[in-house]
C-alpha cells in the first residue's frame, strides 16, 4: 500500500512537469501543425540559466528566496526570447513548405541548441542550487517533500491561468480562431504572425518554469537533459491528443503516473529481471500503443477538423 501511494505522489510530481512541457508542444501544434522538437532544449536552457543566475547571486550573498526568484525570472525571459527567435528564424520562413521540412529543421534546431549549451555550460553534470527548504511530510506510510507539493500546486495554478488566457481573453480567442482557420482569422484582422509568435513565447515560458522545477526536484542538470524530457512530454501530448490543451495536461499527469507505478512494480512483475532503472521504457510503450491504436489521443480532435 505505501509503495502504491508513494509512487502516486512521485507520479503526480513528475506528471505535472511533463504536463507543463507538453503544453508547449501542443500549443504550437494546435496553431500551426508543427512539432517543435527543439522545445525540450528550451526547457534545458531554462534550467541552466537558473543555475547560472541563481548560483551567482547566491554566491554574492543574496537571500535564497530572492536569488531563486531572480533565477526563475531570468529563465522565463531567456526562454521566451528563445522561443520567439526560433519561430522567427527557423520556422516562419518555412510556413508554406512541405510538412517534413520544418520537422527536420526542428531536429536541427534541437541539435544546435544542445551544442550551444555545451559550449556555454560545458559537458559536465551541474548541481542545481537548493532554492526551496527541505521539509519532509509523511502520509499513510508515504513520504513527500515541500518541493513536491510546490511543484504540483504551481503547475496546477499555471495551467489554470493558461486556460483562462486561452478561453477568456481576446488573445486566446484569436489563438483558437487561428488554429481553426488561419486565413479567415486574418480576414477578421488577426495578425497571424503575432498569434503564432505568442504561442511559441507562452509555451517557452511554461517550459522555463518546468525547467526550474526539474532542476529543483532532481538537483542536477546537464546540456542533454532536454532530449529525454522533451521526448516524454511529447509522448504526453500525443497521449492526450496533440493540439488539445486539456489533453496535454491530462496526458502529462497520466504519463507521470504510469511511469512511477511502472517503475515501482516492474521488479515484482518481471521477477526481479528488470529494475526500476527501466522506467523510461514505459513512456515509449505508451507512445507506441497510442500511435497504433488511437493516434488522435484521448481528447484528440478528428484531424480533418484542422483548417
Amino acid at each position: 500500500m505505501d509503495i502504491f501511494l508513494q509512487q502516486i505522489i512521485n507520479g503526480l510530481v513528475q506528471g505535472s512537469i511533463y504536463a507543463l512541457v507538453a503544453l508547449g508542444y501542443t500549443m504550437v501544434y494546435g496553431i500551426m501543425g508543427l512539432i517543435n522538437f527543439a522545445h525540450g532544449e528550451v526547457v534545458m536552457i531554462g534550467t541552466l540559466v537558473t543555475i547560472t543566475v541563481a548560483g551567482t547571486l547566491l554566491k554574492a550573498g543574496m537571500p535564497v528566496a530572492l536569488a531563486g526568484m531572480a533565477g526563475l525570472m531570468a529563465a522565463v525571459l531567456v526562454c521566451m526570447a528563445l522561443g520567439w527567435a526560433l519561430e522567427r528564424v527557423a520556422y516562419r520562413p518555412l510556413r508554406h513548405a512541405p510538412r517534413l521540412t520544418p520537422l527536420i529543421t526542428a531536429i536541427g534546431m534541437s541539435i544546435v541548441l544542445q551544442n550551444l549549451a555545451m559550449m556555454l555550460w560545458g559537458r559536465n553534470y551541474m548541481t542545481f542550487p537548493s532554492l526551496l527548504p527541505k521539509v519532509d511530510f509523511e502520509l499513510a506510510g508515504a513520504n513527500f517533500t515541500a518541493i513536491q507539493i510546490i511543484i504540483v500546486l504551481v503547475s496546477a495554478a499555471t495551467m489554470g491561468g493558461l486556460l483562462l488566457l486561452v478561453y477568456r481573453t481576446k488573445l486566446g480567442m484569436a489563438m483558437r480562431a487561428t488554429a481553426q482557420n488561419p486565413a479567415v482569422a486574418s480576414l477578421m484582422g488577426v495578425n497571424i504572425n503575432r498569434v503564432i509568435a505568442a504561442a511559441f513565447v507562452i509555451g517557452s515560458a511554461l517550459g522555463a518554469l518546468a525547467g526550474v522545477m526539474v532542476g529543483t526536484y532532481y538537483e542536477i542538470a546537464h546540456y542533454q537533459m532536454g532530449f529525454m524530457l522533451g521526448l516524454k512530454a511529447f509522448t504526453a501530448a500525443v497521449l492526450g491528443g496533440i493540439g488539445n490543451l486539456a489533453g496535454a495536461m491530462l496526458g502529462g499527469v497520466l504519463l507521470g503516473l504510469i511511469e512511477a507505478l511502472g517503475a515501482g512494480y516492474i521488479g515484482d512483475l518481471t521477477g526481479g529481471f528488470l529494475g526500476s532503472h527501466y522506467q523510461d521504457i514505459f513512456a515509449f510503450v505508451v507512445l507506441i500503443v497510442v500511435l497504433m491504436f488511437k493516434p488522435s489521443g484521448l481528447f484528440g480532435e478528428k484531424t480533418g477538423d484542422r483548417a
Partner: protein
Amino acid sequence: MLEVTGLHVAYGGIQAVRSITFHVNQGETVALIGANGAGKSSTLKAIARVIDAVGGDVHFCGEKISRIAPHDIIRKGIALVPEGRGVFPRLSVLENLEMGAYIRNATVEAKKDLKMVFDYFPRLKEREDQLAGTLSGGEQQMLAIGRALMSRPKMLLLDEPSMGLAPIMVQKIFEVVRAVAADGMTILLIEQNARLALQCSQRGYVMESGEISLHGDSAQLLDDPKVRAAYLGE
C-alpha cells in the same frame, strides 16, 4: 469606392484572372457572375489580400490597398464573406461574432451591432452558445454574413452566399442581403446563381476564363440573349 485595375492572378502556370478592370460605386450592389472556374473567387481573394495578385492595383476610397497586410484589409472597411463560409467550427456562434468585431474596442458599440445582427438573423440568437461547426449550412452562411457585419464594414464582398443551400434558405439569406444593401451598404456579390445576383444588384459583370466578357446594368444583362443562353439556362 472600389477600383480594380488590371488585376492579374495566377497559380503557378494557371492564369486564373487576366488583367481585369472594374469598379463598384458607393452604395451600389454589383454582381460578378460566371461559370465554375471563371476566376470569381480568385478576384475576391486578391482584393482581400488572401492571395497575392501577380499584377494590377486595387484602390479603396482613393487609397491603394493592393500591397497592405492581409489583416489590415478589414481595418480599411472591407469585409469578405469567403466561399464555403469559413466559420470557426469549434467557436460558439457568439464567439464567431465576437471574432467579427476583433478589430474594434468599443464594446458598447459592438453590443449594438450584435443586436442588429440578431435582428437580421433571429436564428443566430437562438443558437448563440452552439458550436458553429454544428450549425446547418444555411445557418453557417448567416453566421458568416453576421460576422462580417460585426466589423462595421464600409463594403461587403460576398462569395457565393447561395452555394449548396435549399431554395428557401437562399431566399432568406438574400432577403437580408437586400436589407443590408437598403441600409446603405456597398456590396460586391459573386454568384453562380446569375438570375438571383442580377435581380438584387444594380450593375453586373460577367466573367469568363479569367476575363470580363460583358458588363452593364443588371436589368439589361438579365435581358441579354447571350447571358440568358449561357447563365440563365434559357
